[in-house]
């Protein structure tokens, strides 16, 4: 019975809740039991938030009885450790923020709370969202529920793994270079990164401000679309948020792909290092979409090769500034036993930040330094403009762009940690969407060697509805629903 309740979509759960067959408290209990059972092996959660789920589930049950429940009433949600929730320890996966309890809740999370969501806990991630495997967490790595020896992807690996292993119905992640879409692909769930500016970043502990976006993980495109529609929309606290109507993300998204033109960028299709099994799964997906009436067209994104380089200038540059505030003076880790303030800074930061964070802070500091700014940061911004133009040109030929989300399936834990560059290559198909600020989704599209493969759909700016439309048509035609894995004590593939 309880396992049945941990593989539901929002739609399924809401039906049961409204019918009175179950209460929100039942749903929460089922999930908590599931977490107790599987999370010691998956390690998706950093912290559980019992106080919150008790009050929120009570509130949801009261509202459901009264008949004024919000669209997410009683739905268990997991929140990535970079999103501030009032009173809940929020650390961005870093030791430097250990013990930090924000005095406020970020906008996106508050909006989902208002819609009735019930928070189960805080999910693990790469430190400050820097990484593609969740191995850079300052606490512990998260394991892929489909194969515990493998990574869940990252940086939002905890959120992806939680949804994939039945430990939450939906989860929030953030995507700076692929950090929602790539772990969604590797864990076999739906993950959506909205257009830059669609969702307020207020309350998101910044990694790279011009690239970061908050988005949902879910078991269906419908759930992802609903969740996004509830947290989107203008926020006076985020000047980069758009005043476009939140509900437009749902416009016509159930209309199917008949007559749509779907572009396959050759630079993405034949990207270096793409696994044959992944390519085969994408070919199969393209065939299904074509059968549904979509026209597959060849497009080109000629500056793709420069994207990775530009990304690894811009993101570190912004992070070097964003992370300057972690100085041990006001909150978090503080090495006060230092002879002077400068030593206090360096001791706190050396102890509090992991290797990858330090690497990026140094890279970014260098790139912004006087005498290097033009050669690095300014040049990277110009490349960014070229990448936007590539997409503009592509969207003149097609309605959406489709590709693999990740060139590979989930890789073994530890296999890339010694080689940062090979880790950076995980995001080669996703970070273009961040540089250009575009909406993108990853939906499950079969397996390769028994491990999930993700299909990425990228849309034009503000074209979330287009992205959802293609993704939903594919989901429906392929019957490729996100599965729930039940990880065994020894590595074992879950049931699909």
């Amino acid at each position: 019975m309880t396992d049945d309740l941990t593989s539901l979509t929002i739609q399924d759960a809401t039906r049961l809740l409204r019918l009175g067959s179950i209460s929100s408290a039942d749903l929460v209990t089922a999930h908590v039991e599931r977490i107790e059972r599987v999370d010691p092996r998956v390690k998706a959660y950093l912290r559980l938030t019992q106080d919150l789920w008790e009050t929120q589930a009570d509130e949801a049950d009261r509202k459901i009885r009264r008949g004024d429940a919000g669209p997410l009433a009683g739905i268990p949600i997991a929140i990535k450790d970079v999103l501030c929730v009032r009173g809940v320890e929020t650390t961005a996966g870093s030791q430097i923020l250990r013990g930090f309890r924000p005095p406020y809740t970020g906008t996106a999370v508050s909006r989902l709370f208002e819609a009735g969501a019930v928070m189960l806990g805080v999910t693990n991630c790469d430190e400050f969202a820097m990484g593609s495997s969740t191995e850079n967490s300052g606490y512990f790595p998260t394991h892929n529920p489909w194969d515990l020896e493998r990574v869940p992807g990252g940086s939002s690996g905890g959120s992806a793994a939680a949804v994939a292993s039945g430990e939450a119905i939906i989860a929030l992640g953030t995507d700076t270079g692929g950090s929602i879409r790539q772990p969604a692909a590797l864990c076999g769930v739906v993950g959506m990164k909205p257009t830059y500016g669609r969702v307020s970043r207020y309350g998101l502990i910044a990694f790279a401000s011009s690239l970061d976006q908050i988005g949902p993980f879910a078991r269906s495109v419908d759930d992802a679309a609903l969740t996004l529609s509830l947290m989107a929309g203008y926020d006076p606290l985020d000047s980069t948020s758009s005043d476009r109507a939140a509900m437009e993300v749902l416009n016509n998204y159930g209309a199917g792909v008949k007559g749509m033109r779907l572009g396959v960028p050759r630079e993405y299709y034949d990207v270096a290092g793409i696994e044959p099994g992944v390519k085969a799964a994408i070919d199969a997906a393209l065939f299904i979409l074509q059968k549904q009436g979509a026209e597959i067209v060849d497009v080109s994104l000629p500056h793709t090769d420069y994207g990775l380089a530009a990304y690894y200038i811009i993101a570190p540059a912004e992070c070097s500034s964003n992370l300057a505030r972690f100085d041990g003076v006001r909150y978090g880790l503080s090495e006060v036993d230092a002879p002077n303030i400068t030593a206090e800074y360096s001791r706190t930061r050396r102890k509090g930040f992991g290797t990858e964070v330090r690497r990026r802070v140094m890279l970014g500091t260098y790139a912004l330094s006087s005498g290097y700014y033009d050669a690095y940061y300014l040049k990277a911004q110009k490349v960014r403009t070229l990448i936007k133009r590539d997409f503009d040109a592509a969207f003149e030929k097609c309605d959406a762009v489709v590709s693999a989300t990740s060139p590979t399936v989930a890789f073994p834990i530890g296999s890339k940690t010694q080689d940062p560059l090979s880790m950076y290559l995980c995001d080669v198909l996703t970070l273009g969407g961040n540089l250009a600020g575009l909406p993108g989704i990853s939906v499950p599209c079969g397996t390769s060697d028994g491990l999930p493969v993700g299909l990425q759909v990228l849309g034009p700016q503000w074209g979330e509805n287009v992205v959802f439309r293609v993704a939903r048509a594919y989901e429906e035609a392929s019957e490729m629903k996100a599965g729930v894995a039940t990880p065994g004590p020894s590595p074992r593939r879950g049931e699909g």
Partner: protein
Amino acid sequence: MADWETVIGMEVHVQPKTRSKMFCGCSVADVNEPPNTHVCEICLGLPGTLPAINRAAVEACIKTALALRCEIPRHTKFDRKNYMYPDLPKGYQISQYDLPMSVNGLLEVDGRKVRIRRVHLEEDTGKLVHAGDKLHKAWESYVDLNRAGVPLMEIVSEPDLRSADEARDYAIELRTVLRAIGASEADMEKGQLRAEPNVSIRRAGTDALGVKTELKNINSFRALHRAILYEVDRQQKLLETGGTVVQETRGWSEDEERTFSQRSKEFAEDYRYFPEPDLPPLELDRAWIEELRAALPELPAIRRARLVSQHGLTAGQAAIISADRDLADLYETAVMQGAPPLPTANWIVNEVAPTGKLLDPAYLAELMTMLQAKDITRDQAREAYFESVETGRTPAEIVAEHGYRQVSDESELRVIAEAVIDANPKAVADYRNGKTQALNALLNELRKKAPQANPKVARELLLKLLG
């Protein structure tokens, strides 16, 4: 000695008049409020927070730029100035680097044209209080973030000033302009206006600029003047004895009356400026700028000239009245409503400016007319003025109620004057023995008994009676 020329450029930080801080909703604290009482998650720089631009600060900056005849470019943006210091909660200051809000202005000070390079907006830092000496030696240091995020306009001039006098007068004129347009209260003691002169000297007749020093910690116009004088003298002595001036920031010590070398905030000053990604570039609405331009009041320099040429005021009167927009408005409105210009100007300079108590212009006109018609004495006018300010009743009502009037008729005063003479034989004797001041004692006695007496008539009467 006489062949050195002083060259000064000014950087002035001004706190625009706003209710809230630059990027959050916190109210702006007064100087002596308890530490960390005007703070929120945004100005504390807590993780996850974002800035949002205060429109009132932008408006004040545009008004200032317009008053200083600056150009306002179509595009402007904010940048991050990165450096770590405990009074800077985010590890960077949001400022403006290469696309400031305004450029290329001009302020005329006593006939000298001072070019304004730029006026831009930024946020203030917090304040450190050290128990002990400097930060690196202190036993304990405390951080007060009440000021963190308070808006600041930075007004940068070209090096067009040539003396300490000019620099001081420039700063005073700037304050006058800022107050007149309502952009800032510009009170130096409250830290709302901070002047930092860049001082260098060169041989007269040469064009190349000498090595400059930037002076900080200046808390008054007097300190500004003295700091520059000291610094010019210091540089001159250095250069004349074969030394060189080092480009650096120097603090002004009020107690020791000297400047001293200050350690820079960072050992190597590379601020790694880059565009603030949390704030989209601003494209200022041209119609709004034109609205603000149209609503700008007459600038103090122009008003001052007009008060002299049209109203016949002295330069001193005109300077005092035009320095304060409220005074100038009161003066001109009262005159328009029939107040006699010169006595009214005199009244405002002597009675209103020192007290800051403003009366309704129509009431002032009424009072000044009575005073000029010699219906009441100046003392009575003063009483009536302040009573009217406090009660809101008209001066005419107050004068009538108190029976104020001025008696200029000798015959009415003669009885009182005779009584005063009879009652003060000593003063009378002193006067007759040549002590002319004794007359004042008698006059005071007379005015005690008859406040309504016209002082001039009373004096003449006493003189006549004493023969």
